[in-house]
């Protein structure tokens, strides 16, 4: 006689079933650590729906729990604990941290701009040495050595220092996480690309054409929707090779640079090996390109 054996791995027990009858069960204890281990390994992917409809019943019959409400409260406590662990892990990833640092730099730049403008209004440089007075009256003293102005200026300066500390930290972390990207794109631009892609893995999986126009989404969608000209470069415009070359070849340079960044990102994510050749290769190609387009 032929038997239809099924193995069912659930979060609370492993079952063996034959002809829709459970023949063996290996039940977990109800303590959280044991259940967390079981939660982490996926199972029961192509389970027959006749079993899936009876998880609670199976948990009761295998004496995992004594009531449905216990089943739910144990499952709920375990999934909440598991989800929290996943969130913590996600926030501790180095590329997530680099994204935070880049965003912090942008926030500080915005704040410094705003505060500097305020300072210029509040205490314009003209107030520094007043020697002439139109009205012959003495200049208003209170505004010259205002301790609040000094405190304000100091705060802006401190923000400047913080910004350079963060930038230095990005350089360090990028060299550890993505040495090849750092080589080709530079640490700060590389960090920006990782942030825009949503992490090192998404960047490594991206086609170079997308890397080329990342950060120019408005122009890209204008192109796709209304058939305007496609953008030549997005974030990578900041790269000295793009910006430093004449406009007529910038599109081509951007394409080459994006291709090299794509390779660098894949190296950094998948192999961790350092290829010092990437940048010289790119520079050689660009100088070829420059001489070629000059001739034609």
């Amino acid at each position, binding site marked *: 006689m032929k038997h239809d054996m099924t193995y069912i*791995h*659930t*979060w609370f027990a492993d079952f063996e079933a034959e002809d829709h009858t459970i023949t063996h069960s290996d039940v977990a204890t109800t303590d959280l650590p044991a259940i967390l281990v*079981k*939660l982490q*390994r*996926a*199972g*029961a*992917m*192509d*389970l027959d*729906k006749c079993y*899936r*409809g*009876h*998880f*609670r019943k199976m948990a009761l019959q295998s004496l995992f729990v004594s009531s449905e409400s216990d089943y*739910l*409260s144990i*499952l*709920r406590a375990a*999934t*909440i604990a*598991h*989800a*929290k662990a*996943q*969130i913590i*892990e*996600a*926030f501790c990833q180095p590329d997530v941290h680099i994204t935070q640092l880049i965003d912090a730099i942008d926030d500080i730049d915005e704040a410094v701009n705003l505060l500097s403008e305020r300072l210029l209004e509040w205490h314009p440089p003209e107030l520094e040495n007043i020697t002439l007075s139109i009205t012959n009256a003495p200049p208003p003293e209170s505004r010259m050595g205002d301790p609040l102005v000094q405190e304000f200026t100091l705060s802006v300066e401190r923000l400047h220092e913080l910004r350079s500390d963060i930038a230095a930290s990005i350089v360090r972390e990028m060299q550890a996480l993505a040495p090849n990207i750092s080589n080709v794109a530079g640490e700060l631009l590389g960090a920006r690309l990782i942030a825009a892609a949503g992490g090192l893995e998404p960047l490594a999986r991206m086609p170079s054409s997308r890397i080329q126009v990342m950060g120019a989404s408005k122009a890209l*969608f204008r192109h*796709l*929707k209304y058939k305007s000209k496609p953008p030549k470069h997005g974030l990578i415009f900041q790269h000295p090779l793009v910006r430093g070359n004449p406009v007529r070849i910038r599109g081509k340079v951007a394409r080459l640079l994006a291709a090299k960044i794509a390779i660098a990102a894949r190296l950094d994510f998948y192999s961790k090996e350092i290829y010092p050749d990437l940048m010289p290769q790119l520079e050689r190609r660009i100088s070829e390109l420059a001489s070629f387009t000059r001739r034609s």
Partner: protein
Amino acid sequence: MYVKPHKIPSVFIIGKHLATRGEAVYGEKTFGEYRVWDPKRSKLAALLKKYENLPLDTQQIVLYLGAASGTTASHLADIVSLIYAVEFAPRVARNLVRMAEQRSNVIPLIADASRPDYGHIVELVDLLYQDIAQKNQADIAIVNAEMFLRSHGYACIFIKARSIDVTAKPKAVYQSQVKKLKEIFDVMHVFDLSPYYKDHAAVITRLI
């Protein structure tokens, strides 16, 4: 304040507002224990404004794909008996987990709905609710319905035309998605969610 029951059990109408009863979670307006359900913040509320005979009832077990921070899921939890709430992005899921801690009938799962690895956790469900802005959202619905939805169970699937093809006309996108869904579903209704949501549609289906 005059509270009227809605056609759907555990949903209420207060003046012009929809509301459910439960603990407030995201700073929504409340009238006593009633939480106002804003159709501009929740596509399900917008859908209820368009169609009041949604297949929702208090006994249901729901698989909710794309729960995000749990705004809609919290209202749905006030109605149905249990929700398995799946969200992929850990940053967004923080609020979802916080909400799940407040409610005894929400099971939060941080997982990728397009490659479901929660087969050992989620039991058979009565309703598949999907609000995922992905290109392959019809495929996601099909995979999950085949694994988790009971036969003749309902599925409520939101389609965001813009995340499938920005260049195509929204109506054409809805049609192509509905065609895909017809592989395994009876498509009962398709609603456009304007004016609450632009280029969004809700598809109400039933597993064959």
